[in-house]
């Protein structure tokens, strides 16, 4: 092989040579033939190529046909369908037409209600109503089912029958909740029932197991035996997660004439004690049904034998008109057009919602303070959302390599990056200034880098040269313009002084300095003839500095024998590889 070729070969980047060989092998060239083209690199090249072939051999292994991928596909698509359904639910609840919102209807005059519901019954075909009977929350026909029930209630005038119907509908809601849980569907719903048991976060209400969390709003003192309404969200694992539990009279009179309380104050609203996080809204109170619309004009028409028991009936669905103002803080988890998820709670946004972004942008991850109105259907309508803190960037993996600039038990600087070292940081190798380090770190939310794993790559290129000491320092000397670093393992033979001639043996660091393993100081020509062959420990080096007598014939070592420069000098600056996701 000609000298020119060898020279070119040296000049080539080893990475490119390696890649070229791999490419040739891929095309059918033998490993040996490829290595033969680069004799000076053969020692480095060959083992890496052989290793690459071993890795490639993993590919040759027959991959067993996947057995369950098709079944997993079905599960995956079901999961997607549930997410899609939940997505559509959100959109639907935020765009309920006025005529479907029965609670809104209830707030209108009774005459209008009767008229509207009758129109709806006429409008809906019998087939649609029948088809809706088995629907569950989240199904397209579920609103039809609920509407039908409302009409049924409105058209039931006999109190006894109405009470039975209310119980039946309560039971139906509980059965729906169980069905939703067992089918592991995601939906939001509410039902009423008696608290059967409370065991930590595990409640049983009306025979339905429900789970509470720190976020569950429990209004008033709820004890076992209390009759409550629970608003909940079902999770894909079948858990029914309570969002709000409130005590509710098992039956109250929808008919003011039946009530022993005089119906003089139309502004009277049920006054359940709100939890500390909820305060009565300043919004306009809801008007109770007009007393004049009731069929019994006088209290005396009520049978006196059953003054309280028979006089108390309630439609099951509408919660007594109560709008409470809710304040809470939390992380924004999702932002859709008109529904945000904050701290696990769905919050509706409308045109009147004030969004204060002075402290940060409203984005997923930001911390927000919310003031919202809990509406009668259990949903939260935001009045004001204040962004308190901008998006908290989760810890981001961050990988790079760079030269060690300094290191201490708690902090290293590598490639210009300051790394926090903790007890959990795994450090492989012994750090030295100027050594190359491969770093895996986590970028924390405040931007600092927490070192997870540092691999110190020791230099392997040995150099030897002679020169004159230009400066002497505790850890660094300059010899003929070359920075020579000393550490605890550096052996210094003789007494160094500026101007002394020394022979340096050491390792070439990536930054061009030399980490000295041995420095032999040659006696100054003008010095006393007494030989300074006894090893003298450098006062500036660590006390553990090893010493040994200089071998005879130090002065006869070849001068300025610079070993070839490393072909694979890593980059002086750090290279970074942030990891996604």
């Amino acid at each position, binding site marked *: 092989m000609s000298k020119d070729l060898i020279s070119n070969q040296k000049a080539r980047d080893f990475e490119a040579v390696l890649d070229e060989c791999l490419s040739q092998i891929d095309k059918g060239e033998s490993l040996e033939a490829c290595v033969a083209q680069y004799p000076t690199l053969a020692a480095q090249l060959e083992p890496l190529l052989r290793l690459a072939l071993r890795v490639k051999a993993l590919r040759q292994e027959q991959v067993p046909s996947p057995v369950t991928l098709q079944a997993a596909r079905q599960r995956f698509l079901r999961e*997607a369908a549930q997410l899609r359904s939940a997505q559509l639910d959100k959109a639907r609840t935020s765009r309920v037409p006025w005529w479907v919102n029965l609670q809104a209807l209830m707030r209108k005059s009774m005459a209008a209600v009767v008229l509207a519901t009758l129109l709806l019954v006429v409008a809906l075909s019998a087939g649609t109503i029948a088809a809706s009977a088995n629907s569950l929350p989240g199904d397209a026909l579920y609103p039809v089912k609920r509407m039908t029930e409302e009409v049924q209630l409105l058209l039931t005038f006999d109190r006894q029958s109405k009470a039975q119907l209310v119980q039946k509908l309560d039971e139906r809601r509980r059965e729906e909740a169980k069905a939703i849980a067992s089918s592991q569907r995601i939906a939001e719903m509410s039902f009423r029932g008696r608290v059967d048991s409370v065991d930590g976060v595990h409640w049983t209400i009306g025979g339905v197991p429900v789970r509470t969390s720190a976020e569950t709003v429990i209004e008033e003192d709820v004890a076992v035996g209390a009759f409550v309404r629970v608003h909940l969200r079902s999770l894909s694992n079948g858990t029914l997660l309570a969002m709000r539990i409130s005590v509710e009279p098992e039956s109250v009179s929808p008919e003011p004439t039946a009530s022993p309380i005089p119906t003089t104050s139309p502004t009277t609203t049920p006054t359940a004690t709100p939890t500390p996080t909820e305060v009565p809204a300043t919004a306009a109170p809801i008007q109770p049904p007009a007393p004049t619309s009731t069929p019994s004009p006088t209290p005396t028409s009520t049978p006196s034998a059953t003054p309280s028991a028979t006089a108390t009936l309630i439609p099951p669905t509408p919660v007594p008109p109560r709008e409470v103002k809710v304040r809470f803080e939390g992380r924004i988890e999702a932002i859709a057009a008109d529904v945000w998820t904050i701290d696990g709670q769905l919050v509706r946004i409308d045109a009147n919602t004030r969004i204060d972004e002075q402290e940060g942008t409203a984005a997923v991850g930001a911390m927000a303070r919310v003031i919202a109105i809990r509406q009668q259907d259990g949903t939260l309508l935001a009045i004001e959302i204040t962004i308190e803190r901008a998006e908290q960037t989760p810890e981001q993996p961050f990988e790079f390599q760079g030269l060690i600039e300094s290191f201490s038990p708690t902090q290293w600087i590598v490639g210009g990056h300051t790394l926090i070292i903790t007890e959990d940081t795994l450090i492989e190798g012994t750090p030295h200034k100027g050594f190359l380090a491969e770093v895996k770190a986590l970028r924390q939310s405040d931007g600092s880098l927490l070192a997870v794993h540092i691999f110190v790559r020791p230099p392997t290129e040995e150099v030897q040269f002679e020169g004159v000491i230009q400066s002497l320092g505790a850890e660094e000397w300059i010899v003929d313009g070359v920075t020579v670093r000393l550490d605890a393992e550096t052996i210094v033979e003789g007494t160094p002084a500026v101007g002394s001639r020394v022979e340096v043996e050491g390792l070439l660091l990536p930054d061009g300095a030399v980490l000295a393993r041995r420095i032999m100081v040659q006696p100054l020509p003008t010095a006393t003839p007494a030989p300074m062959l006894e090893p003298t420990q450098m006062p500036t080096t660590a006390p553990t500095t090893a010493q040994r007598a200089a071998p005879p014939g130090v002065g006869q070592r070849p001068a300025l024998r610079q070993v070839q420069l490393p072909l694979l000098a890593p980059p002086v600056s750090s290279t970074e590889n942030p990891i996604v996701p």
Partner: protein
Amino acid sequence: MQPNGESALLERAREYDPAAIAEIYDRYSLRIYNYIYHRLGNAHLAEDLTASVFVRMLEAVRSSKAWRTSFSGWLYRIAHNLVVDHFRTGQQDRNVPLEDWPLASGEHPADVAERSLTQQRLRMAISQLTDAQSLVITLKFIEGMSNAEVAALTGKSQGAVKSLQFRGLAALRRLMDEEEL
């Protein structure tokens, strides 16, 4: 970089369009399965983790920041992270079940066992590389991709891929040497 039609497909997937979701699964599941199998050498585990990859995809698909350049590269990264997690949490069983050893005809079981264990050591060593190195090594040598394909998937330049290829092989050699000592 998105292949033709992939952007529209992903746009539909963001809305959980069932046809789009199914198409994504059909397009990538086998590739991801193969990738994970090659990394772990265990078919059952590969199938489980493949399912996890797609569940994670479903959770993240609505986020516009989920992937920056290459969707398939992003899937490989999820798969890679799951594999690394698997090794890191020490769930791997170094004893490969006998029935999982692929027996070539005429091959002595002892040879097969030896080969299988060597391969497992190699897989574990790959998992100890830096994330970027192990991804490049796997995509290049096990998945048989070109530098250009690896670059497109990982969002790096071809020069960076060559560099990671070298550093990865060098580190792998060191790890294997330590292992074999």
